[in-house]
């Protein structure tokens, strides 16, 4: 790479690149407006991940409350939900909190997804949070759907029938999947036990996937600022009190309602069934998620050569200079530096007595160069943008 002296990166050439650059500018423009109202450390769009985590936390707490009273069987399922809603003090409120926090969760997750997509925060080794994030989205959506099943009113019954139809439409594995989903050949008491498991099991799995999601992040921002914690919890309670969550008619074996209230966040696939065959909906969902997984690999806003200094190669440790001071290890935001016992003394005077040596885990490095700024011993370099290139530019600047 040249010294990059004032070379403006050429604007992306492909139509997709130009479009995504426009989207990027729009996303950041939104920040400019929000920052006029909120101080930067209170900007909710800087904390979409933390907000998702907050909503998930509310869901877990309210879910534990609901779990105390819920009974998973065809007769008791509906009745116990009714009892929670009307009989338990503040039970209906907590049910509403669970319901609206789920919507908040999906909204926050989608904001998180689009913001990080549109601002290129999935490039290089940051595909790891992207992939785990897609898994989190799929599991989160599925958990939301099985939650609707648990109420076991008419809507739940129809949804179950629709979903079984969608599963059965799949060739080869369809029938088997449908059996797994309803826990037997037909709907029985076992169905609700299965639904309860399919609600709580994947929900617990979310936390395992969150561990994966955070794996390469040093100091992940997992909690939003105070004002947003208060506002989100408050909004959820306010909604739960003003528009209480309700059940429809209890499910009846012969019941077939023609329509039921839709939830735009979890039930969109079922709405599509009005217009498409079950198999087509399944194919569409499959294609959507496959594309989602592929985004980091197929959809680059800029070609690598257009990224200028932002694509300067994985950081390299200069063995002879490293003193094992661990400063880069503490500053790398992606946990990409490991300290290993030094195999041999370094060459420079400062490095002669080292006990540790820094090693860059190349599969984790995103080429940001933060470790270069951290190292006081000139022991780290970005291969395509060396210290000497920087010094040459400084020199040119002070001489003129």
């Amino acid at each position, binding site marked *: 790479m040249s010294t990059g002296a004032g070379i403006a990166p050429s604007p992306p050439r492909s139509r997709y690149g130009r479009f995504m650059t426009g989207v990027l500018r729009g996303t950041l*423009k939104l920040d400019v407006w929000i920052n006029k109202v909120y101080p930067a450390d209170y900007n909710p769009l800087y904390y979409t991940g933390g907000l998702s985590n907050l909503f998930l936390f509310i869901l877990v707490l309210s879910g534990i409350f609901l779990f105390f009273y819920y009974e998973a069987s065809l007769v008791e399922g509906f009745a116990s939900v009714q009892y929670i809603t009307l009989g338990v003090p503040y039970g209906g409120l907590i049910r509403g909190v669970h319901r609206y926090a789920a919507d908040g969760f999906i909204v926050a997750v989608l904001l998180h997804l689009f913001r990080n997509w549109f601002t290129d925060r999935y490039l290089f080794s940051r595909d790891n949070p992207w992939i785990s994030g897609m898994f989190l989205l799929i599991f989160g959506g599925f958990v939301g759907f099985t939650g609707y099943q648990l109420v076991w009113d008419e809507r739940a019954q129809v949804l179950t029938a629709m979903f079984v139809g969608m599963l059965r439409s799949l060739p080869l594995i369809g029938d088997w999947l449908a059996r797994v989903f309803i826990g037997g050949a037909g709907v029985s008491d076992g169905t609700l036990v299965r639904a309860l498991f399919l609600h709580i099991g994947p929900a617990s799995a979310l936390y395992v996937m969150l561990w994966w999601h955070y794996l390469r992040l040093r100091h992940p921002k997992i909690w939003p600022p105070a004002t947003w914690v208060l506002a989100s919890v408050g909004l959820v309670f306010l909604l739960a009190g003003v528009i209480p969550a309700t059940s429809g008619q209890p499910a009846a074996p012969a019941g077939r309602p023609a329509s039921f209230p839709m939830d735009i966040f979890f039930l969109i696939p079922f709405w599509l069934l009005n217009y498409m065959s079950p198999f087509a909906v399944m194919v569409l969902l499959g294609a959507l998620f496959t594309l989602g997984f592929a985004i980091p690999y197929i959809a680059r806003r800029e070609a690598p050569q257009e990224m200028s200094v932002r694509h*300067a190669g994985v950081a390299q440790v200069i063995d002879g200079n490293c003193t094992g001071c661990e400063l880069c290890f503490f500053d790398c*935001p992606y946990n990409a530096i490991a300290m290993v016992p030094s195999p041999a003394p370094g060459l420079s005077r400062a490095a002669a007595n080292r006990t540790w040596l820094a090693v860059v885990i190349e599969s984790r490095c995103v080429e940001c160069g933060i470790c270069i*700024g951290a190292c006081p011993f000139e022991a780290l370099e970005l291969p395509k943008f060396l210290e000497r290139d920087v010094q040459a530019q400084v020199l040119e*600047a002070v001489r003129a």
Partner: protein
Amino acid sequence: MSNGPKVVGFVCDWSVDLVPLMEGGRLREMPSVRIIRVPCSGFVRPSWLEDALGRGADGVFVTGCPYGDCLNREGNYLMRDRVDQLQRRLQRRRVDPARLGMLAYGLHDGPAFLAAVRAFVEGIRALPAAAPPRSAPAAPAPAAAERETP
């Protein structure tokens, strides 16, 4: 180019959109300000800032993304801490902290960025003349750098 203090700015490639502001590596409105694009504000090693001052620059500043929105998550916070430390260290050697700056501006903040740079330059202009370049220890390095770059 002669009018105005010599200022070197390290600007994160992701932060301010420099294309409309720059010409030949310098700010169009303030040709005495030389811009060096870096992959992230956290890439800047504080000793480079110190060197630049030592070799005759009248001021150095680093620009990153708005705090909280660093492309690389924490680069601008880390850099701000490093600049603070360096300011304290240089103050002990009687270098005015106003010669070092840390700015944070996003893609759309071009005008605000220019205003901040102008204020920075004016602040330096108001200072008494800097001590002559501290050339003794730093001299060999620039010579080497000159030879090696085409």
